[in-house]
């Protein structure tokens, strides 16, 4: 199936109108030695056959009943409204809304998304999206470098290790120096040559920083340095103080927790919000409100396009064009479906369930919760035998927590546990059982 609607008669008719004999004549500009003899690919499959093939392929992806794995991608309940709205083909099959008059629906939705992110984060302006949290953080670092005209960036330990790698790659591209620093050493590392300090809170290990205190510390020593916060699960903003009130200059987050399926890690959503004074340097698309030229009605359009690549070309600070529009629509529907009441309840449940599991773990000998600060829905646990824990979890149909040795080989036997509102009591009981069994296995071996 090629989805071409023409039949042969129509094709003949069209060739006549064009004035050529056959389709091959339309390719006469291509040198003969470049024309290939077809592709070495199998023939096309019908819907039922392709469905069968994909189901076979998908069968080796295990779907767990419950998950205790987070580390940058989270299982939250997604309201049915989200898929209902993003499945409307007027939205998902539409193009970037450059022709504003024919795209008022989507433009208004993006404006509402920008507004809702501003409301939630208490930052002044949010853009229409970046690719994901990791690239949003990298572009924030570059933006800071351009604004301050400095080419040194400090990143605090505790930022997601994959995010650090991405920032590193982007900085290398622009000859920006990157230094990773432990949070308690930050004051020693600050100087007037630093463009920005990047940090994550709640961080990769679960710790929630007192951002106001951190911000004051940093601005005291380096007042012109920008403070950039990233977040991997922004549902915590239902309870935690928003970045706009703590002294953060640029806020980025992975928005997958706002109504987007895990989907093996992509597509996600790069949330990007800044203080007013940085508005003109923000990358990505922006939707603005305005009036008709010859009328009184208000409408929406893409604005401040002179920042972007299609106008600035090599003078643009970012090359971003296609972003994650449909995912920002998902996030908007998620947030309006929950409202303030729902946001508070979800965040509270995440806090309380994780806290509950922490308390239970503390009672199991051999295990130690290692966090020394408050945590949201993730925390780290030293385990007597992490391999055994992982096996026991799988036997009980639980997606096991992340062994930190994946990113930090020296952190053997430490697990990053994630508990969200989607973890029922029953699944938590099974998890506790898995922990106990793993401990017994260790004891049994010695």
């Amino acid at each position, binding site marked *: 199936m090629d*989805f071409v609607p023409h039949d042969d008669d129509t094709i003949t008719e069209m060739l006549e109108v064009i004035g050529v004999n056959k389709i091959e004549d339309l390719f006469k500009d291509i040198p003969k030695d470049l024309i290939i003899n077809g592709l070495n*690919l199998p023939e096309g499959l019908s819907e039922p056959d392709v469905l069968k093939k994909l189901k076979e392929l998908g069968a080796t992806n295990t779907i767990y009943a419950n998950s205790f794995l987070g580390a940058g991608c989270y299982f939250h309940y997604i309201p049915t409204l989200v898929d209902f*709205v993003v499945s409307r083909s007027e939205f998902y099959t539409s193009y970037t809304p450059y022709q504003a008059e024919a795209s008022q629906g989507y433009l208004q939705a993006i404006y509402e998304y920008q507004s809702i992110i501003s409301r939630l984060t208490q930052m002044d302006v949010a853009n229409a999206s970046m690719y994901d949290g990791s690239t949003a953080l990298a572009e924030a670092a570059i933006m800071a470098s351009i604004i301050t005209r400095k080419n040194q960036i400090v990143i605090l330990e505790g930022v997601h290790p994959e995010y650090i790698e991405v920032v590193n790659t982007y900085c290398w591209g622009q000859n920006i120096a990157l230094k990773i620093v432990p949070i308690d050493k930050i004051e020693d590392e600050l100087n007037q040559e630093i463009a920005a300090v990047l940090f994550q809170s709640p961080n990769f290990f679960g710790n929630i920083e007192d951002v106001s205190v951190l911000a004051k510390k940093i601005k005291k020593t380096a007042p012109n340095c920008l403070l950039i916060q990233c977040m991997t699960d922004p549902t915590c903003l239902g309870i935690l103080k928003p970045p706009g009130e703590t002294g953060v200059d640029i806020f980025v987050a992975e928005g997958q927790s706002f109504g987007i399926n895990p989907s093996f890690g992509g597509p996600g959503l790069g949330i990007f919000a800044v203080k007013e004074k940085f508005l003109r340097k923000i990358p990505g698309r922006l939707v603005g409100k305005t*009036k008709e030229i010859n009328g009184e009605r208000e409408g929406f*359009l893409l604005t401040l396009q002179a920042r972007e690549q299609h106008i600035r070309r090599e003078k643009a600070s970012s090359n971003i064009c296609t972003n994650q529009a449909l995912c920002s629509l998902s996030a908007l529907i998620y947030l309006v479906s929950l409202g303030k009441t729902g946001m508070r309840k979800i965040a509270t449940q995440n806090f309380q*369930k994780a806290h509950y599991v922490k308390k239970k773990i503390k009672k199991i000998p051999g295990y130690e919760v290692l966090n020394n600060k408050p945590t949201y829905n993730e925390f780290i646990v030293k385990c007597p035998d992490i391999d055994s824990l992982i096996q026991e979890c799988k036997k009980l149909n639980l997606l096991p927590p992340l062994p930190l040795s994946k990113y930090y080989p020296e952190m053997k036997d430490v697990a990053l546990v994630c508990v969200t*509102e989607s973890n029922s009591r029953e699944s938590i009981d099974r998890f506790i059982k898995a922990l106990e069994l793993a401990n017994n296995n260790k004891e049994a071996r010695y």
Partner: protein
Amino acid sequence: MDSRDSLIFEKGNKNTQINFIPKMDIEFDELESFIPKNLIRDEVQIPDIPEVEIVRHYVKLSKINYGLDSGIYPLGSCTMKYNPKINEHIARLAEFSQIHPLQEENEGALQLIHNISNMLAEITGMDGFTLQPAAGAHGELVGLLILKKFFETKGVVKNKIIVPDSAHGTNPASAKMAGFSIIELQSNKSGEVPLDHLEFAMQQGDVAGIMLTNPNTLGVFDKQIKDITKIVHKYGGLCYYDGANLNPMLGICRPRDMGFDIVHLNLHKTFSTPHGGGGPGSGPVGVTNELIPFLPKPCIISTENGIVCTHDKTHSIGRIKAFWGNFGIILRAYVYILTLGAEGLKRVGQIAVLNANYLRTQLQKKYNLPYNRICQHEFVLSDKNMPNEITTEDIAKRILDYGFYAPTIYFPLVVNGALMIEPTETESKDSLDKFIEAMYQIYEEALNEPEKLKNAPSNTPIGRLDAVNAARKPILRD
């Protein structure tokens, strides 16, 4: 009729019923007992909104939005082809949508990425692919970083990239993000790259490579493409192919054979994944064997046991995105390629070019066609010689009144008042004829009733908007 409503926030009230929270089934502690008060925020400033109000609001908004399922989207350089519904169905299956990127049991997902890599390699002639980049521009950045690393490991300083003046804006912007500066080449009268200027630029010795798309943004296949890539290689540079215009070449011709070393593709253009109003997309990058060591991490390879695993390359440019790429989009493209097969892909190229030339033939009877020759998948008209000082923008806005989406305007920059048209292969003759008829009527109006164009659009939910004030005093949130 003003069918646009208020903002969603105005639909809120004090009804706090919420249907999306599971019942709390554990013994819980009050938050304040374990979270310090100074970390806790005031009330979130998002109203509670009844479900039925949310539904009505967004259904209403969808009805004042033009999607591809509504009608033709003749946007040049965008390849707005039909988005098959089977792709959407499969992307939502739990075995793909509910899997975590870090879970160990991911064989099916990795196999899928590996399979599509092989298919894209066959389609383009390249040797290895990464599916990590989230969009075409992201792919461009990756490709250019690969170039940068390639020369770095050789200890050679090459810090310039050649870009033709007809190039898409992301090309020079991406080059800059990768630390290069630009040499812009002026296209010749036929819209092609002038070989002598190219050779002169390459002779300076500091050029890392050239970024090209072929067919170019004028819809013209540059016959000298092999000469171009030869010249660049002769002086130690590499050639980058912007795959945005690959559609007409599917099954007919391959970038590798043209001499390209690096290719990016746009799955949301050529491979039918939905445009989503501006994303998400996916911009896989393919390279020659020589450049495979530089691909971003993680890479997916298969061993002789047939098991797919990951392997970090020693000269990798590093990670360019968390996790594995836009998997949900990659999956849709994979299903599309499986659906088309070899024959279907070839037909795509053939009919894309047929449809574009049919439109061209009919439209040039009234409108100015600066490059009067057989085109590939797209062609460019201009507002030159339009009566009554009608501009391209006026034409585009009047097209909206006829119920169609307007083509790309004012791009490429090499044509003044450009109107860039790409119908794709999934438009029927009937759809094309209706568009042609509308364009003929618009021309008559330009002649006899120009105010209809000057005041356009008048048949859309809103009239022409004040972009100047929107940029002077931006209102970006409520």
